[in-house]
């Protein structure tokens, strides 16, 4: 693991990302392709599940729905922070 990190570091220098990271042309940010597409897909899925007034989601009582939104929010913020930590410091 350390050898791999060291060699990729030596070859690419600090400004180039590791090979499994791609650049988002819209935002100019680097990230893994899955991560770049995941948030909108997750958000759309979560919205259709949580915001739907359909009766088949009768189990989605208001307190549970509120808690669920908080869970999703905290997880996304945590993952974003970990991603930022890795992007800034892991070389």
């Amino acid at each position, binding site marked *: 693991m*350390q050898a791999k*990190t060291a060699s990729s570091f030596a070859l690419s220098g600090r400004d180039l990302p590791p090979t499994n990271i791609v650049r988002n042309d819209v935002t100019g940010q680097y990230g893994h392709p899955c991560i770049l597409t995941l948030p909108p897909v997750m958000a759309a899925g979560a919205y259709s599940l949580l915001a739907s007034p359909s009766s088949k989601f009768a189990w989605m009582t208001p307190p549970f729905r509120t808690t669920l939104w*908080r869970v999703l929010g*905290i997880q996304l913020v945590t993952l974003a922070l970990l991603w930022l930590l890795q992007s800034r*410091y*892991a*070389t």
Partner: protein
Amino acid sequence: MHWINWVIVAVYLVVVVVDGLRRTRGTTNIEGYFLANRSLPWWAVGLSVMATQLSAITLIGTTGQGATDGLKFVQFYFGLPIAMVILGVTLVPFLHGAKVYTAYEYLERRFDPKTRSLTSVLFLLSRGMSCGTIIAAPSVVLSSIFGWDLIWCVALIGVPTVVYTVLGGVQAVAWADVKQMFVIAGAMLAIIIVLIVRMPIPLDDALHIAGATGRLQVFDFSFDLSKTYTFWSGILGGTFLMLSYFGTDQSQVQRYLAARSVDEARSSLLMSAYWKIPLQALILLTGVLVFLFYLFQPAPLLYNPRHDALVQQQEPTAYASLQSRYTLAIASRQAAARAASTAQRSGDDAAVASALAAFRTSESEVGVIRTDALDAASRVSGEASRDVNYIIPRFVLDQLPLGFAGVFIAAVLAAAMSSIAAELNSLSTATVVDFYQRWIRPTASDAHFLNVSKIATALWGVFACIVATYAATLGSLIEVVNRFGSFFYGSILGVFVLAMIPRVGALGAFVGLLSGMATVGAVAIYVPSISFLWHNLIGVVAVVAVGLLLSIGSPRATPPVSR
């Protein structure tokens, strides 16, 4: 350790036991003893669930893992929030609505007695042994650090836990968990603050150095079944592991069965989902900070003092040679770290790259010497070194200001006690409800069952302490039982999934369960390269596939309970 630290530990133990005794007043019947009369608020249940899952192994071992391997272990928990949401809308309403005492009781209502008894036996077998290891792990560390006999360390953790669990039942367990969670969080915060304040270089520079060693690499997106911690194993395998653990393990299920309502039970699980990943990331980051701290302080060659003394005693020449090489290597590493920090502040990218490359070389040299020392420790002690478990305790005792070490030891005891208490309570529940009441004495007074429950809790406590005392001797046996236990998790979850499919009958469930266990066992033996996190997913798929196959053409069954 200073006497003030011991006073802090003693005060903590007294408060926990006295509070447990106070809770006996609300425990006059079996429902009060096992389920707190289904009266606990969601936040208390949520904290109890978190405290139960956060054992002393997590507090000591995971921080040590952060110091040596970095943050990648956090991926293990990525599936937890998903699992909690799925459980909140599926299993929790079923189990809470069924008014059962154990998760396995529901399986008899849905299928038959043998499916219930088999799943309950599997739980008792694996949890009974794991309870012993939960006591043993911190006891071994405390014994080595303080030079005490192992049996006294086991007693220090085991006796107060057994006393308050026997007397107070789930009320005492849950409310002690709440307090213990605050002690643990307080100790971790105190350590982090001390580490940041005492870091000799700016935190930003220090994190760049940690990043250069790969310790801040969190995400690994490779889809490699042989790697244990990847994004995908966490999301897929981790989800099924957490579904199995929180959905079918009585030590967890019993916590949310004690909640006031289905909504409160769901909220308590989701509370655990809120904080688990941030908390785990924080624990691992603490380990990374300890690694950075020791770049600028004389780090011990071996963190385990007993092993250090043994190597010094039995291989003095080799030890002296290792120690002199190590002293030079850590001095060189410290100089490289300071040079990297200076280069960071200069803003010259080429200088930073060169300085970090030099740091990595010196870090590799330290790693080689440490590996030689660990090999020597294993050779002379005849046991696996497990030095990683001693990094945080040594840091706390050697480096923290007066009083902090007491809080940390109290937190280690709290983490161990909260997990053990929950397990003892659930082991007693499964023994009494699934076996004593089901097969031996179906009808008796509530007072009789309450007394039997207390005796069962005490006996499981004694059993766990005996296993913990002989943990070193029984090491391989316990590991086998634990591995064996992990084979069952996915398969038991598979049975609960089958329970929600109306067409599946008792034969499909029982044969499916046996097939799932056999499949996971075969995979573990013949394809050992597949990481254990995938075993749960394989178990669930095998049980559901066989269960459905055997139920083709069966009439549609009516589930015994609905939400």
